[in-house]
């Protein structure tokens, strides 16, 4: 009722009475169909308008979502979810177990061509369905009754609940999809089940959400209206924030950290982010194929502290391990030389370099490839200088457009190293570990160690969480010993958050749902 009154007074003055949150959201979301998206921009909006079987708190702990409770069989294979009786679509229709069966089948269906169909890979038959070898009806997700859903996994998956909080596993409304086809996720058509619902979408400008009165936990929602602005240019976004037109920015411009930290330290929110920036070796080719000493020498000769403090200076953490510390309680194994003084590292780097058969006069011919960006270039130049100084090595820097570079990496055509990064998909160390598996599609270096693969296999079979982490630690220690890549730094998420926004908490995956936020009344808190 309140909502319709507020919607009726469309004058700019209404901002003073309606609680409206204005969020910068980076790139334009490619769609709002949970099965057609993969960008963070789309994920941010979907997390506001939808909800999976499980959800998470503002600081990232898994909590009940559409399912109010669940049971897991002792072998970790059978999941039974009890849905909330008051879970509803944004038009008031009840959400039933059928909706989830339909949605999961659609996600796995090759006809949907969903980017994240692989999220369901742990479920019996999912992979065969996505390959087109089985009809979607064979997916092992079944209705027990309207309020109970059963899922059968082919092997125990410790992080399976995490996946069920991911937007691609949110339910889609069957009737709308069948009626409108791929265009169902438009304003006026899209029915969703989160704290907000889609009100308006202008491609290239913004997406406006309004409170969903049918959300089961609507009583806890404190902000009535949320607008996500597509602002891919960080400098433009910062200007909008400074002009008081945004409450939250999606990022901060490169090189502006020191200034913002001086001018508005209270508004700057920097938190560890589960992502690693790395330099990958092309292990298919000379000089790195089979030359571990050389790879290790290059890794040792990079001074990460200089890169994080002097080149970046945003609070990033130097990376020695592949997995960032603190991913769901996992601590990556030490590589040994983190604590060494720079002199000792350099001496060891030179020794290994000689052992690899090179010296200051006869260095290997190689290039360091990075995609066009000022930040990547600055890091590449620093690394080039460090190798030159420490080893006398001359590396050629090659700057390329992103997709051109990706194609070269995947074709194994890079003559040397390339820069890349990995961002966690879910809060479990496996999201990093699986990248280096020999059969992984995302393994860009060509790392292939059967012992590593078998440790991952063992970890997958292990139900005991402590033992499982121990196996993953062992695998990571092995990989870091082999140096298929050089971890350079672990990312931080960076936002400007206006002082009138309350409830903001750091989140390791950088998810911040509007329903967890509130606006502090009285005055304009922005600068």
């Amino acid at each position, binding site marked *: 009722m309140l909502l319709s009154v507020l919607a009726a007074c469309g004058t700019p003055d209404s901002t003073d009475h309606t609680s409206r949150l204005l969020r910068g959201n980076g790139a334009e979301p490619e769609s709002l169909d949970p099965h057609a998206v993969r960008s963070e921009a789309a994920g941010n909006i979907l997390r506001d308008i939808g909800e999976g079987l499980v959800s998470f708190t503002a600081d990232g702990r898994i909590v009940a979502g559409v399912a109010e409770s669940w049971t897991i069989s002792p072998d970790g294979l059978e999941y039974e979810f009890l849905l909330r009786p008051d879970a509803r679509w944004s038009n008031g229709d009840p959400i039933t177990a059928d909706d989830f069966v339909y949605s999961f089948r659609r996600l796995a269906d090759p*006809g949907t*061509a969903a980017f994240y169909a692989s999220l369901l890979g742990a479920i019996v038959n999912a992979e065969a369905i996505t390959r087109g070898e089985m009809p979607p009806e064979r997916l092992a997700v079944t209705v027990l009754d309207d309020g109970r859903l059963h899922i059968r996994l082919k092997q125990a998956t410790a992080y399976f609940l995490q996946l069920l909080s991911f937007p691609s596993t949110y339910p889609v409304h069957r009737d709308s999809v069948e009626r409108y086809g791929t265009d169902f*996720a438009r304003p006026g058509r899209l029915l969703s089940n989160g704290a907000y619902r889609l009100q308006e979408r202008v491609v*290239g400008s913004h997406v406006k959400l309004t409170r969903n009165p049918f959300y089961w936990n609507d009583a806890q929602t404190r902000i009535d209206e949320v607008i996500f602005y597509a602002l891919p240019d960080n400098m433009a976004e910062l200007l909008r924030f400074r002009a008081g*037109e945004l409450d939250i920015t999606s990022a901060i411009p490169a090189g502006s950290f020191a200034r913002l930290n001086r001018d508005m330290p209270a508004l700057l929110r920097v938190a560890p982010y589960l992502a690693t920036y790395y330099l990958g070796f092309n292990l298919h080719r000379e000089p790195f194929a089979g030359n571990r000493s050389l790879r290790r020498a290059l890794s040792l000769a990079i001074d990460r502290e200089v890169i994080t403090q002097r080149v970046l200076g945003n609070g990033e953490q130097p990376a020695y391990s592949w997995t960032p510390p603190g991913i769901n309680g996992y601590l990556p194994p030490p590589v040994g030389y983190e604590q060494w003084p720079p002199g000792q590292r350099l001496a060891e780097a030179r020794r290994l370099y000689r052992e690899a058969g090179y010296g200051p006069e006869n260095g290997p011919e190689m290039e360091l490839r990075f995609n066009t960006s000022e930040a990547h270039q600055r890091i590449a130049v620093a690394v080039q200088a460090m190798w030159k100084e420490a080893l006398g090595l001359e590396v050629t820097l090659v700057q390329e457009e992103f997709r051109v570079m990706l194609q070269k990496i995947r074709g194994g055509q890079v003559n040397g190293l390339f820069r890349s990064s990995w961002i966690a998909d879910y809060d479990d160390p496996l999201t990093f570990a699986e990248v280096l598996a020999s059969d992984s599609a995302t393994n860009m270096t060509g790392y292939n160690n059967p012992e590593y693969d078998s440790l991952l296999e063992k970890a997958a079979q292990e139900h005991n969480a402590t033992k499982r982490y121990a196996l993953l630690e062992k695998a990571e220690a092995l990989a870091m010993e082999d140096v298929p890549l050089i971890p350079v730094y672990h990312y931080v998420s960076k936002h400007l958050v206006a002082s009138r926004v309350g409830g903001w908490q750091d989140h390791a995956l950088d998810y911040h749902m509007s329903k967890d936020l509130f606006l502090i009344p009285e005055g304009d808190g922005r600068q």
Partner: protein
Amino acid sequence: MIRYAIQRFLGAIPTLLILIALAFIMIRVAPGGPFDAEKQLLPEIEANLRAAYHLDEPLVQQFGRYLYALIQGDFGPSFQYRDHTVTELIMDGFPVSLRLGGLAMLLALIVGVSLGTLAAFRQNTPTDYTVMGVAMTGISIPNFVMAPLMILLFAVYLKWLPAGGLGDGGIANLVLPVIALALPQIAYVARLTRGSMIEVLRSNFIRTASAQGLPMRTVIVQHALKPALLPVISYIGPATAAIITGSVVIEQIFGVPGLGRYFVQGALNRDYTLVMGVVVFYGVLIISFNFLVDLLYGWLDPRVKY
């Protein structure tokens, strides 16, 4: 006249066909594909995507499919914005770009022609140097420097105008982007006008008009302006086509949902159909504006006959 128009129209068809074929081939020759990302897709998922967009068919068949749809006015589905067709994206973005670009061009013409005429009339005086100096600066300072500075001054410090977005569609939101778009155009138009006005002022028919005792204002407005505008008109034809299809810089800095970013983002995303769509659309506009310019020539210059 009508015969001329028909000739021009028929001549445009092969031009467009060549444009379409070149764009079709070039975007596909560019390394990397529309579904590449750091998180590599599983091969089966990529295969499904390629099948959904008919990328698994032979090139000739894809081209035929594209042309067939195009004849029916269908630019196909966007690869990046999966629940939008390219036609929808263009039809949503074009009115915005048209409004901004049209206003900017109008502003550029009025201000640019006035300043250029003034400078020509006061040739080699401080007025001339000031106008031309400002024009040079306008040409030299790129948009991506000027626009943020304008926002900083007028939105952040003075708080006179909004920093970006289209707001409720009010005029306040248009002021800064229109000015930012118009500034370099004002500079070009002023320089072109000044140059050709100086030449026209030296020509015999102007000397005759002045000698007959006509007031200077009449000489300029009635006799000198039309011929002096010829180079400006040939410039603004293609320039208008460019400006009303948007500017990626202005759109990103002001958060305006126009067409311009599709040229750049479409290419970076390898959104084949979107790139094709905007290229064809832009091509048609360029051809049309050049035709209009030629018609205007006939009106402005008595020597031109069709």
